[in-house]
Structure formats: C-alpha cells, structure tokens
C-alpha cells in the first residue's frame, strides 16, 4: 500500500484527461439549438483517439460508424428476453427500458406517480415537462468535446428521465436499462435524473447486450455483416439540497464488439449525498468518463467502482472526484482486475477548486492482474487549488499470491477454485458496498462467470511463472 499525502497548493497535472468541471451545454438554448450545435461538432470532429505519452492509447478510430444504424423499433416490440433473464426479479419503484433506439417499457408504481415522481423517456420529458427539462438538461454535460459525445447530443432518441420530488423517500430502486440486440447498431443513450430537496432514492442502471461474439457472427457473410455496435452514452444526475441517492450501474456488453464511449456526471448539491458505484464488467472497447462533483457546501459522497476485463477487451476509465466548494467530503475507492489479453487503465483525478476550502478526500485504486498478457494501469492524479484541504491517494497493485493459492490447494481446492476465492475476496469489499442483495448476487454471478471463462488464462499464468 503506497500512500501519498498531497500538500496543500501542490499541483499535479492529470496525465491524459481533463475534468468537465464547468458549465454544460444547457445554457438557455433550446434542445433543437443544442442538437444543431452538436451536429456541427459531429461533422467537424474525428473519431476520438486519446494518447497518453508512451504507453497508453484509447482509440475509436477503428469504429466503422457508417456501417452502424441508429436502429429504432415499434414501441410495442417488447422488452428483450435478455432483460428478464439478467435483471434480478425484485421489488422496484419503476423501470424504463431502452432497446437500441427506442424506449420499450416504462413502468412506475402508481402510488409514486401520484406523489409526483416522473419516470418517462427523455423525449417525452422534453415535451411534457418543458420547465424541468430546460432547467436541467445538459446543465453540466458538454456536447462537443469529441465526435461521439457530439453524436449522442445530436442524435439521441428515447432516453430516460427520472424526477423525484422534494422530500420523497423511495426504498425500492428505479431501474434504467439500455440494451443492444446485436451488431450493426449505434445506440445513443441519454439519461437525466433529478433528485428534489431532501429526496432519498436509489437508481440502478443496467447496460447489456446479447452475446454476439465470434460464434454468433460465424456463418454469416463476414465482409458485408458488421461486427460492431456502439453505445455512446450520456448520463447526468443532479441532487438538490439534502437529497440522497445510491446510484449503481452494472455494465456488461457481452462478447460482441460493443464500443462504449460514455460520460457520466453526478452533481451533489448542498448537504446532499451520493453513493455511486459503477461496475464495469464487459465491453470490447469501453471509455468511461465518470465525474462526481460536490458543487455546494456540505455535500458528501462515496465513489466506488469495480471493473474486470477479459479476453481482448480494452477499458479506459477516467474517474473524477471534483470539489467545487467546501466544506465537502470525498472518498473514492476502485477495484479492478484484468485477465486474458485485456487491457485496463484507471485514471483517478482529485480536483479541488480554489473555493473548496475544508475539503477532505481520499482516492484509492486497487488492481490485480490475473494473466501474463493482461495489462493494467492505475494512475492517480491530484489538482489542488485550495490550501485548507486534505487530499491523498493510495493503492495496491496485486498479482495472484502463490502462497495463498498453495494454502488453499493444500486444503483440497483446485487452482481455479483457489483463484476464484482470491478474486472474489478482492472484489468483495466493493460488492458489499452495493448494499443490495439482488444486485450483489448479479455482480457476483458475473464475476464468477468471467472467471470461469478465463480459466485457461489463469492456468497459463501459473505455468508462466
């Protein structure tokens, strides 16, 4: 465990990415104006390529956008089986499902409707709740930093809008689901969630796709059939004074060539609190910018995350712990593992703005490499512009510990079972923080099945040493 305390006033530049940390696109313009501006950016910009000096590149240049369709469905096409098969069957406050370009299910506890909760497609929200929409839409999200962000802002359809009114406490989660059926699809998903003053609620987002890897595409005419799909996502959550939200996002795009380039922004208001936990568990090429901002005094947050890459997946996470005012609190804790020939990069940035005195925050990233060809980098960086603050970061880089494996083997567990115990033990502290049995079960299951798929790699790791 290395731990570095950062002296007040000391600046360390983020190595690759920049925090959003400013006003968004929603500055009084109409939706049409913003779409037009985004379209101009889309036409101007190239597909994004991010290069960190020397050793890391995240490139969407191989994405064949022309071969992809922003496919929409008749609204009554129904919820894909995958959703019913994957999501835990559990009590929920509501659910909205977007299949490719179309919202195919909106379900809300009628009692909550009566109490003022709004759950609908973002398209509907723009028409039916114009004031709320105008006030919050893209308030902190930008629309023109790169081609895929612009594509989302220009082309999004469907979308999810959730509004929880002041003072309302909802125990069961709201589920927001994005699904992709197969290759050849560009999904531009857009979510806006607003928690009114003193509201208290939970949001579970699920991102999933049917497996359309090698086996599924085999047999078809390889040249003319697209293999890729795209999810370009934008997510924003605003918590007003004293609101509390637990936000969990479970992403697993399966074995197909799903490219995911998304930005998520959570804004914590005065005395509000957010517990945010993205679980990134699969995708061919995934680039996530997750930014959690404490924007008003007294705000507090816990930012947890986990990721697990396998096969040839590539994952690039940029997590920002942004403090715009003080006093504020932050606590960032991510865990990630990589197997196969996958590559994962986690960059965590603590950014404390000049006005954010009396901020206390800590960022840690723990990683574990499970196969000889996997690569995993964890890069913490800190940008502090206030002097009465404490900010530090730490982390561990782990490999499979052979003495632990031998210990378990000496009790009768085979190597794969022993590795499973270690990896599950590694993730368990984060999974425990989901504090939701059905969701925990789902994440554990996904980790177990990824481990089972990686069995050969893990064996190879033993012999390579």
């Amino acid at each position, binding site marked *: 465990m290395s731990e570095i305390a950062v002296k007040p006033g000391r600046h360390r530049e983020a190595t690759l990415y920049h925090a959003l940390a400013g006003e968004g696109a929603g500055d009084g313009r109409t939706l049409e104006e913003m779409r037009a501006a985004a379209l101009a950016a889309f036409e101007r910009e190239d597909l994004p390529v991010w290069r960190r000096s020397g050793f890391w590149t995240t490139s969407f240049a191989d994405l064949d956008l022309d071969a992809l369709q922003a496919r929409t469905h008749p609204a009554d096409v129904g919820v894909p089986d995958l959703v019913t098969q994957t999501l835990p069957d559990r009590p929920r406050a509501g659910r909205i499902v977007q299949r490719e370009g179309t919202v195919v299910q909106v379900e809300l506890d009628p009692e909550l409707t009566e109490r003022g909760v709004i759950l609908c497609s973002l398209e509907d929200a723009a028409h039916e709740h114009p004031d709320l929409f105008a006030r919050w839409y893209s308030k902190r999200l930008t629309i023109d930093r790169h081609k895929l962000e612009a594509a989302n802002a220009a082309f999004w359809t469907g979308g999810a809008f959730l509004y929880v009114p002041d003072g309302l406490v909802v125990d069961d989660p709201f589920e927001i689901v994005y699904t992709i059926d197969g290759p050849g699809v560009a999904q531009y998903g857009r979510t806006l969630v607003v928690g009114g003053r003193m509201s208290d609620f939970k949001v579970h987002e699920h991102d999933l796709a049917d497996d359309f890897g090698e086996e599924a595409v085999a047999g078809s005419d390889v040249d003319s059939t697209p293999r890729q799909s795209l999810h370009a996502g934008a997510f924003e959550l605003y918590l007003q004074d004293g609101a509390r939200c637990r936000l969990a996002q479970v992403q697993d795009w399966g074995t197909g060539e799903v490219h995911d380039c998304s930005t998520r922004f959570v804004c914590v208001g005065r005395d509000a609190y957010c517990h945010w936990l993205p679980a990134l568990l699969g995708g061919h090429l995934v680039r996530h910018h997750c930014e959690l901002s404490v924007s008003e005094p007294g705000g507090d947050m816990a930012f947890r995350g986990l990721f697990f890459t396998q096969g040839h997946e590539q994952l690039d996470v940029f997590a920002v712990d942004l403090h715009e005012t003080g006093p504020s609190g932050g606590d960032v804790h991510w865990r990630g593992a990589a197997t196969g020939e996958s590559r994962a990069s986690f960059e965590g940035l603590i950014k404390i703005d000049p006005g954010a005195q009396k901020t206390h925050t800590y960022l840690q990233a723990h990683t574990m490499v499970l196969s000889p060809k996997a690569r995993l980098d964890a890069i913490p960086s800190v940008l502090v512009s206030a002097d009465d603050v404490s900010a530090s970061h730490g982390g561990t880089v782990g490999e499979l*510990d*052979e*003495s*632990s494996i*031998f*210990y*378990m*083997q*000496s*009790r*009768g*567990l*085979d*190597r794969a*079972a022993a590795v499973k*115990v*270690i990896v*599950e*033990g*590694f*993730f*368990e*502290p984060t999974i425990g923080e989901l504090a939701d049995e059905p969701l925990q079960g789902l994440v554990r299951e996904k980790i177990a099945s990824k481990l089972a798929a990686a069995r050969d790699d893990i064996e190879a790791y*033993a012999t390579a040493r």
Partner: protein
Amino acid sequence: MADLEIKNLHVRTEDREILRGVDLNISRGEIHALMGPNGSGKSTLANTLLGHPSYEVTEGEIFFKGENITESEPHERAKAGLFLAFQYPVAIPGVSVANFLRMAINAKREEPIGVKEFREHLKHAVELLDVDRAFTSRHLNDGFSGGEKKRAEILQMAMLSPDVAILDETDSGLDIDALRTVAEGVQKLHDEQGLGALIITHYQRILHYVKPQFVHILMDGRIVLEGGVELVERLEREGYDQIRQEHGVGV
C-alpha cells in the same frame, strides 16, 4: 507398508539443495516428532510433502497409501488425506472460516455436505478446540493473532479428518492454555480417528500432551538420529552441537 513413505528425498529450491536424502515412514495411528535446528529443512520437507511449487524434488519419491504422489497436484494430495498445518498460515481475505471449511469439505466429496451435517461437524470441532463460535465467521487468518492462526489450522484439521497430518511448529506462538487445548485436540483425533501425525517442533513442552512414539532429528537436510521420547530429553540437555559432532554433520 506405511501410509506415508518418504524415500531418499532430495529437494532443491532455485538456488540450492535443501533436503539431501530423507527417509521417513508414517502410518495412521502413529505420532512422530521431527526436530532440528533452524534452517535444517523441516518446513521444506512439510511443504514438499504437499507439493509446494517452489520446491523441486530432484531425487527420491513420496508414496501415500501406495500411490506415488511425488508429482501430484497439492489439492490431489489433500483429497487423498494429507494435511499440513502451516508454520506461517496466510490470510485469505474475503472468505470466512466457515465458508472456507465448507468449500474444503465439499472439494473432497461428490455431493455437497448438508447444512445440518456441516453445522454439527463444525460445532464439534469448535468445542474440541475451545474456540469462540464467532471465530468461524471471521475471514480466514485475516487479522488473526499468531495463536488464533494456529488454532484455525487445527480446527481445519479436525474438520477435514486427514489420515496423516504434518504440524509445522503449531506449538510456537501459543500460550500455555492454548497449547494444551491444541495438543489435546491432536491427541484426541489420534485416539478417536487414528490420525497419524508428524509434529515438527523445537520444544519439549508440546510433547507432554501429545506422546510421540518416534522422534527424528533433521540436520542439514538429513535425518541424522532416530529414536523414542528419550531423544527429546537428551536434546534438551545437550543441544544440537553434541549431536552434530557425533554425527559429523555440517561445518
């Protein structure tokens, strides 16, 4: 034929040879003590018997219940009925003692053990070793004191009912009460289930509670002296130097 037969065992690590021809036979129902100075190769022998990947057998063989296990995977040896109580047990965060034991027991069985059967089995072992019940819901060895780790080793042994167990300095780090509990536990498993044991120790005191029939002295990778309990007393009196001189080992 003994249950565990060690024949002319030579073992090396990456940089040097540590065991230089060890012969030892242990059967169910027998209690053996293995003593020897620091660095003589006791733990190396123990780890090699369970197939630790850091130790290479360059010559000789290990048979267990008639099968040559020299090249077997560690978990196969465990399933065959060998057990090692580690000198330095490692922590396994994320899994409770009880869940780990359930996994280990199930690894040996076709059908998973029933909830009730497991619970009773665990209750029995917990009582035998006089540990707090809450102990079994803690993560295995994670933050355990030295003594707790040693107890956890013997608790696992009691649960897994091996035929032959190697106890590598299980007595070190135990206070006098814990030592008695643990040693009596071992004796009981021997008396009731016919456990065979190789007790590696530096001290006479554990042998007050568990009575070995055979005592072996390991020096510089070889067993240089064998006998009964009287050897322990002699060792306690004279130290290793005397023996070293007599048997001309190590300069």
